[in-house]
């Protein structure tokens, strides 16, 4: 699979990202600009996917990049890449926002949509729909290779912002099973995506950022 052939870029980019962060830490405001240049597209893509709202998604981005400017020292150089750190913050803030902003009614309705869409008889429709929104790519094939229940659990949590217990309720599955599925799915994705060296950016956001 193509994804295993990408590590060269990752290491290189990981170092470039670290250099940018180092500049931010040194008080270089322009480095925030560069960091923004580099990550704006995957960051926005993620925030929009979770929030389904462009305005809220951009608010999340501003929040994240401003937060990095304020406190670049929050990054742990010992574990993980700058890319994953940044995108994790985007994800968590987007999820917080979706939980805050979505009214109870809307969230209920959306949960029902998700549920109806994931009902067995309609599975193929849903997935077609979801895949349409996702570029054909290495991650797509990795996700596709997952057993359905694992993919369902992970996508509801990651893209939908649902908690494990909510995923359990939505899928009519015991909580313990949901937890197990998420772990098994993540392990499988990690193996497929092959990050290799722990702590190093084996996986970075796809192109579309600066090169």
């Amino acid at each position, binding site marked *: 699979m193509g994804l295993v052939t990408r590590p060269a870029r990752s290491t290189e980019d990981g170092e470039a990202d670290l250099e940018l962060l180092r500049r931010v830490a040194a008080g270089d405001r322009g480095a925030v600009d560069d960091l923004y240049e580099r990550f704006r597209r995957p960051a*926005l893509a993620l925030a929009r996917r979770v929030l389904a709202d462009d305005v809220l998604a951009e608010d999340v981005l*501003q929040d994240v990049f401003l937060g990095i400017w304020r406190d670049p020292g929050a990054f742990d150089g010992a574990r993980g890449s700058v890319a994953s750190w940044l995108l994790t913050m985007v994800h968590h803030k987007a999820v917080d926002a979706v939980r805050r902003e979505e009214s109870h009614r809307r969230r209920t309705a959306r949960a029902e949509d998700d549920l109806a869409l994931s009902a067995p008889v309609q599975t193929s429709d849903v997935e077609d729909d979801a895949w349409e929104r996702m570029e054909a790519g290495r991650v797509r094939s990795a996700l596709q290779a997952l057993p359905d229940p694992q993919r369902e659990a992970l996508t509801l949590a990651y893209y939908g912002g649902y908690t494990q217990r909510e995923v359990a309720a939505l899928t009519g599955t015991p909580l313990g099973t949901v937890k197990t599925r998420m772990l098994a799915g993540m392990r499988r994705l990690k193996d497929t995506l092959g*990050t290799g060296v722990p702590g190093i950016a084996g996986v970075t956001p796809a192109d579309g950022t600066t090169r």
Partner: protein
Amino acid sequence: MSAAVPQPGRDDEHAGWDELAVGWALHALEPEDESLFLAHLRSCDLCAQTVADTAEVMAALAGDLPQTEPSDGLRDRLRSAVAETEQVRPAERADPPAVRPPVERPPLTPVAPLGGASVYGNLRAPLPHRRIDARPSWRRVLPTALVAAAVAAVLALGAWNVVVAGDRDAARATAAEQSRVIESLLQPGRATIAPLAEDDGREVATVVARDGQVQVLAQGLSVNDATNRTYVVWGMRDGSPVAIGTFDVVTPQMDLRTVGSQATGLDDYSAYGISIEPGRQAPTAPSEIVATGQVTS
């Protein structure tokens, strides 16, 4: 809270921590699991690594989403915000030690030539900053078990209906009804929950009691003849039943009924029961108990 709360120190149980680590990275843990895991994470390298690995996979997932440009205004807004914001100096960093592992951990691998790591100040785990619960108040106040139980019960039924009916209008009507039920169940405030089962253990109703109101989520009680029969909800105190109020079941489908009652302190019983009675009034003692159950939350 969690049925599978992992116990530290038991070899076969680290899988439970692994599961929580993935949930943590996904920002998908319930508050109680979150505090449990946070306490563990401080001293577990294995879990810190699992969190980091999961974050890498998540980043890859984000990278493959369809990408578009942010508006031009965002870059400008960010620039001006950065221009007028001072950086946090290491000395004044407000981060509570709670989110920082107490032990200095050397990098497991000679990661990128960071060289001046100290430039960053105290480089620590990319732990999610979520000390403030930003959830809407109903999510905080209600016991998560109630939310989960209600949503699970209602939505599980919905899924079944959708699959069987395969009819969009029917599904929509069901969804609207479910919204009403969930909405009503999830109104803010403290609630006492008691699932009630028949003798054979089949759950047929859930009592949701608040101080001045009792609701019954009927999910399989027979429809009563509202002209000469009534259901009665009983609260059990010191072994003797107290009639709380009456309600009718009008559909064999899941339905939420509000129990007519003037009393207060309705949530103050250790167990609840439902009986079917002749006439339209609650007798002094139940004649035919249909279902009983202990309070679970």
